[in-house]
């Protein structure tokens, strides 16, 4: 049987603005049979997204397919005319972009963007497409499936947007779907539902898939074959079981071993010094017009109270859309809380960042969930990182240059990226720049919203080590928002579980790793294992699932 996709000796090169050529993909071969799901995993920046895009016959601006061929259903995407390619895109191959936030047009309603594919290729009447979209929303566990499409992209949470992007790709029943990190921003419970939905849809229609991910455990659940990439070259290709059981390549083994959660070390700061750094009391925040009671129409966070001591870390977990980012934004003063108090280091924090002092702002940094929209596209990485150094610490010239290098080093970014703009970076690289910028301020507290979600296990582990090290040196504290329980467990002293805008439980892993609240239990049991059959065998209490998971 002929392969659906045949990639031969593919080379992609990028041209920097000085005209220098850099080879990002250095000649790879890849076959995908119809109905087969192939996973691409590898280090952040290894070329996963680039390869995925070439299957669409597309190279990002500044890049170019410089050699080889990409045959999809018998057509060489490299050689086709732009018009012919457009006929393949969306219809035979569709793509779920890595950064859903940037891929949605901010000025159009979500539903119109989701069904646009059917309009472009004239697949079905709009009303039918709308219905199909709603059923996909439901399958992907999106809340309010009938209404969510009428919102604008900035009105939904990160994870919701990611699933909406998946719905957009699936609506046309393509032969091949490329998922670029489709579950990075999802909590584990939702992730399970989504993975199941993917699997079901793909099995049913015999859709082949390319699944780009950093997460071996997730990949293990869904992929038939795994391709391990590094530095634009294929390191190893093998069936899923084979890789998990018997990885040949040292890099693959490294990836696997980084998966094992490391035990959390003792809290570094002596107990004596402990005093509350951040206190949050009865915070209410949300969106929409203010109601007569002074509160917003949609309350995304309700009466949340937290307390964090200096040198300790707080994890916040909870399903996608439960209000984690909203909470982080109100702590940072971006979305002024409608009610409740905030204190930082004993001093009252004004609800709005505008009213806070510069010192307070420096002490509390936030790293945004959407890395690409929070980096100014007109500036180079150097300028982005240099600004807080100058602004808070008055650093100039050489000193600043060295510090920028140090910061890039800390987050494992090659120095060659200094002069690039955000558009010339990979997803994970952007995320790290974003984080490095917060570090540059030398704050007391960093609110990290999903900073490792797009990182492979190796780099993520390195970043976590870095966090710990910095904590030791600078007695930093973190609020760590993540879907990744192993990461949260590895670094946090306390874990807050949120559900539907409310804090439902606070767990201290050092004392008791056992959650009490039923939702927390569900959450903890949903962490995928490095076992390909885990998902299929997973049985959860149907009652719990019914109560806590939409769909």
């Amino acid at each position, binding site marked *: 049987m002929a392969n659906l996709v045949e990639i031969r000796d593919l080379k992609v090169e990028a041209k920097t603005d000085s005209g220098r050529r850099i080879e990002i993909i250095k000649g790879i071969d890849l076959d995908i049979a119809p109905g087969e799901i192939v996973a691409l995993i590898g280090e952040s920046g290894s070329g996963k997204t680039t390869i995925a*895009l070439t299957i*669409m016959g*597309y190279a*990002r*601006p500044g890049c170019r397919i410089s050699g080889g061929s990409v045959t999809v259903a018998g057509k060489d995407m490299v050689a086709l005319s*732009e*018009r012919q390619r*457009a*006929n*393949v*895109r*969306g*219809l035979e191959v*569709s*793509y779920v*972009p890595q*950064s859903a936030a*940037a*891929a*949605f*047009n*901010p*000025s*159009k309603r979500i539903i119109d963007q989701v069904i*646009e*594919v059917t309009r*472009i*290729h004239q697949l079905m009447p709009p009303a039918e497409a709308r219905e199909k979209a709603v059923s996909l929303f439901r399958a992907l566990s999106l809340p309010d499936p009938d209404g969510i499409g009428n919102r*604008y992209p*900035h009105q939904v949470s990160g994870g919701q947007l990611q699933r909406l992007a998946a719905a*957009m790709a699936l609506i046309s029943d393509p032969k091949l779907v490329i998922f670029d990190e489709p579950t990075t921003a999802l909590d584990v419970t939702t992730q399970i539902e989504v993975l199941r939905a993917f699997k079901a849809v793909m099995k049913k229609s015999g859709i082949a898939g390319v699944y780009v991910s950093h997460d071996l455990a997730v990949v293990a659940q869904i992929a038939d074959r795994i391709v391990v990439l590094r530095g634009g070259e294929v390191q190893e290709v093998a069936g899923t079981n084979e890789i998990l059981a018997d990885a040949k390549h040292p890099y693959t083994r490294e990836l696997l071993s980084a998966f094992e959660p490391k035990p959390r070390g003792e809290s570094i700061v002596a107990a004596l010094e402990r005093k509350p750094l951040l206190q949050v009391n009865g915070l209410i925040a949300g969106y929409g017009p203010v109601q007569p009671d002074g509160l917003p129409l949609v309350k995304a966070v309700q009466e949340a109270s937290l307390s964090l001591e200096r040198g300790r870390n707080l994890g916040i977990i909870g399903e996608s859309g439960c209000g984690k980012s909203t909470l982080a934004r109100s702590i940072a003063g971006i979305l002024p809380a409608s009610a409740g108090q905030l204190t930082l280091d004993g001093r009252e924090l004004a609800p709005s960042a505008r009213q806070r002092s510069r010192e307070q702002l420096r002490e509390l940094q936030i790293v945004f969930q959407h890395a*690409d929209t929070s980096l100014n596209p007109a500036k180079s990485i150097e300028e982005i990182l240099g600004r807080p150094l100058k602004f808070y610490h008055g650093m100039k010239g050489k000193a600043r240059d060295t510090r920028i290098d140090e910061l890039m080093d800390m987050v494992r970014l090659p120095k060659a990226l200094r002069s690039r703009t955000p*558009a010339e970076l990979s997803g994970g690289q952007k995320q790290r720049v974003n984080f490095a910028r917060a570090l540059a301020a030398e704050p007391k507290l960093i609110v990290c919203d999903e900073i490792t979600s797009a990182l492979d296990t190796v780099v993520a582990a390195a970043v976590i080590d870095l966090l710990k090290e910095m904590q030791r040196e600078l007695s930093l504290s973190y609020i760590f928002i993540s879907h990744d329980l192993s990461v949260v467990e590895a670094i946090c002293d306390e874990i807050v579980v949120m559900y539907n805008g409310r804090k439902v439980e606070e767990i201290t892993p050092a004392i008791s790793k056992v959650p009490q609240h039923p939702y927390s239990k569900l959450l903890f049991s949903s962490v995928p294992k490095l076992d390909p059959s885990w998902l299929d065998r997973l049985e959860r209490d149907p009652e719990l699932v019914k109560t806590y998971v939409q769909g």
Partner: protein
Amino acid sequence: MRNYVLGLITNRLGSAALTLLIVSFAVFFATAMLPGDTATILLGQAATPEAVAGLRAAMHLDEPAFFRFARWLFGLLQGDLGTSYVNNVPVAELIGARFVNTMRLAGIVTLFAVPLSLTLGITAAMFRGSVYDRIVTVLTIGVISVPEFMIATSAVLLFSVYLKWLPALSFASDVTSFWQVLKIYAMPVITLTFVVSAQMIRMTRAAVIDTINTPYVEAAILKGASRRRAVLVHALPNAVGPIANAIALSLSYLVGGVIIVETIFNYPGIAKLMVDGVSTRDLPLIQSCAIIFCIGYLALITFADIVAILANPRVR
């Protein structure tokens, strides 16, 4: 949504009324500051002091200027534009037919210029850096670099004097058939289209280019959208704000700025009326024209503002 737009519009109407009041005061002070008054100017060379005094008394110009202004303003509130000092005709009567002419000319030019400019601007943006783009740039700039009176005069020389295809004058009242409308309006419309299009073309091009390299346009292309669709459906709506503003600014010229075209084609519009008003210091006439220009301008920019706000859900 409808309520939202309605609220926006009422809000804007309020501030527009305020702007009108400011403009009205400013115009009054400006007129008052100009040396010479209606009587001296009407008498011209014959302005001996006693003749001036006599005429002033006869025209009731001897009341304090502010008084007259206030009276005019009150009249305006009752829908009365006042009476011209110069020939005692109600200003509404002077403006009436000419206002219609101005609006008609502006309307026809808009009908031509806006679609033309948008097409050229958008296509130039789509093929940015191509020969086509460069030609459009050079032509648009070349065309507006030529002073308006030169375009108009050349057109008359060519089409009326040498070819004798079109009449040299555009009296709006002579219109009886559609064919005549075409003949009479052809040259003024061409001239004005040249004048107002460039800004729209260039701004459209720039604004579209600014949005064309965004991830969502890329995403649209990956959905199989043609380049045209990606630009028209995805890039353009995000550039609508600046484009609407550029269009509004260009078109506002058509209300009060067409003095040259009115002069050369002898087209009776209100721009010339305003100039007459200024040269005779005919306060009610100046004020009424200024208010009309201002309303036209405010209507255009308010429209642009509303379009811009509606186009970007985040600023709502």
